[in-house]
């Protein structure tokens, strides 16, 4: 019963891990909350369009895995996908902010 939640849970674990790094070094959300939220929302929006195009062209589809939930927000677009795209964008932002501090532009 719980196995369906494993994908979602692993995404949440990933997000939490990035959040801890973010918080520890004040990189994104703990640096500028509004800017972070807007950046993530806009970036995720772009990726959602990309995903929907891929789905629309029949390139990829939901795999019916026992590790994923059966709920779709849209045809072939599972609820976990939003969390995944958020993780991708948040991870990119936090890593980039960290890298910018460590290797600043000269």
């Amino acid at each position, binding site marked *: 019963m719980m196995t369906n939640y494993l994908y979602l849970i692993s995404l949440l674990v990933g997000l939490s891990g990035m959040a801890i790094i973010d918080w520890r070094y004040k990189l994104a959300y703990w640096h500028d909350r509004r800017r972070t939220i807007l950046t993530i929302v806009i970036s995720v929006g772009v990726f959602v369009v990309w995903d929907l195009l891929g789905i629309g062209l029949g390139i990829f589809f939901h795999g019916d*895995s026992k590790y994923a939930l059966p709920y779709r927000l849209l045809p072939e677009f599972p609820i976990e996908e939003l969390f995944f795209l958020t993780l991708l964008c948040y991870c990119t932002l936090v890593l980039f902010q960290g890298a910018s501090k460590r290797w600043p532009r000269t």
Partner: protein
Amino acid sequence: MAAYLILNLVFSLVVLLVLRVRIAQLSKAHLYTLIALLLLTAVFDNCIVMLSIVGYDVSKLLHIYIYKAPVEDFMYPLLGVVLVPAIWRKLGAATNE
């Protein structure tokens, strides 16, 4: 045959044009972030493919894989590493610090 590749190239190009990204904006930070993301993607993508969380119409792929992950998937982190910092930067310029 190459539908996925073409989609990814066209989409990325459109996004880059809309954002008016210039090569000069890219830096070491971008490169190191990209390397990290590519490694994470290689692991993560293989996991979701092998666990059947995602499925592909193989007739639309190049059939070039990093283990089980289609190479075209790597364009997501590639665009992301340009897109996300560019939006962050533009939002910073907009609020005019």
